[in-house]
């Protein structure tokens, strides 16, 4: 640790934390809810996709609100994963497990999103194509894990977010926030799984 002032370190760590919620976490929630349209059948879903893709300036919005924040969060997050050294086999505490699962889920989500974006944005994006992909067992497992891990990473990230921003300071408030987030995780995962099942 040097004595020279390099406030960029603090700034980038805080930016990394903030990006996880705004816009990435909010986008994830919006994305999950919007995809419920798939439960209305292929016509409704394809119409929603077409509407979204026909939105004026969608490319700029996707770039600024989705792509750049996720890229920054993922690249810096990968460095964060590298700078840690898990010791969960020696210190088998629940939060220590969450620490390592947060990192594993982050890395998995990065791989998942890359393939997901490639499939949905740069090749044919419609109900039939995704349905075909999800009917393969490997595709189904890959997607289900991706959805669950992405939601876990977001929700567990929110738990740490409240500490990083000095909101939940004591152990009691941290525990109450954890209980609240368990409910959020169950709700979002329920929506995510309902989305996937719509394509089967």
């Amino acid at each position, binding site marked *: *640790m040097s004595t020279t002032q390099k406030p960029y*370190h603090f700034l980038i760590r805080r930016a990394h934390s903030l990006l996880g919620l705004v816009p990435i976490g909010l986008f994830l929630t919006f994305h999950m809810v919007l995809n419920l349209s798939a439960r209305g059948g292929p016509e409704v879903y394809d119409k929603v996709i077409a509407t979204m893709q026909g939105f004026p300036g969608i490319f700029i919005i996707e770039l600024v609100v989705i792509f750049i924040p996720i890229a920054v969060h993922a690249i810096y997050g990968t460095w964060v994963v*590298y700078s840690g050294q898990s010791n969960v086999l020696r210190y088998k505490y629940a939060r220590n497990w969450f620490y390592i699962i947060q990192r594993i889920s982050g890395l998995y989500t990065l791989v998942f999103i890359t393939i997901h974006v490639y499939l949905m944005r740069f090749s044919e994006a419609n109900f039939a194509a995704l349905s075909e992909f999800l009917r393969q067992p490997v595709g189904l497992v890959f997607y289900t894990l991706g959805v669950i891990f992405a939601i876990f990473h977001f929700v567990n990230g929110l738990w740490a977010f409240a500490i990083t921003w000095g909101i939940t300071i004591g*152990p009691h408030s941290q525990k109450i926030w954890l209980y609240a987030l368990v409910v959020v995780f169950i709700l979002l995962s329920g929506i995510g799984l309902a989305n996937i099942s719509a394509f089967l």
Partner: protein
Amino acid sequence: MAEQKTIHLKIRRQDDPDKPSRWEAFNIPYREKLNVISCLMEIQKNPVTAEGKKTTPVVWECNCLEEVCGACTMNINGQGKQACSALIDHLEQPIVLEPLTKFPLVRDLMVDRQIMFDHLKTVHAWIPIDGTYNLGSGPRMSEVKRQWAYELSKCMTCGCCMEACPQVNSRSKFIGPSAISQARLFNAHPTGEMNKHERLAPLLDEGGIADCGNSQNCVRACPKDIPLTTSLADLNRETNKFALSRWLRK
């Protein structure tokens, strides 16, 4: 616990920081109420391994023998603990002793924790008092505040939190929970508060508070039950306010 005839110890030995480590087993006649240090003293008296091979006495460090100095901290059955307060009757056997892994090794179970003291200097973990003339008495500290601040002052810089922290390792510069908690202690003091900025500014640097990974192992590992995670969260709030305010005034 059923009475045992012998105490089995497995100790990771290393003659020199550059030499490879090796395991040596020792059997010690059982006596009641021994601690790890008294076992190491038995080995010192008769340095013979369980296989009957003569060896050198095991090197370790200890001082107060009452869990207030932190010198005898080592990995006991895989977790950082003080050897003085680690009672044999409470430990699973064979008792595995290893040096702390987050500090440079000196020999056997002895490590150099200098880096922790350097970190205390980094965060200005002291209160500047009289210089060349008497500054007079400082402001009073409220009793309520004194009581919780006392809990933080129990830190003995033993390194258990550093050992348990996944963010403290050779790839990271994280200064660890103890130094950060000490910054909170001295910021809480009415006189120390006057130099708050000197403790918050270094926490914004690389290795500072933002490198915490929220595994919360530190608070579980701390032998003095110091609310380390509360200190970290509290200083998160303080450093956020400090960084924003400093930037807006630039």
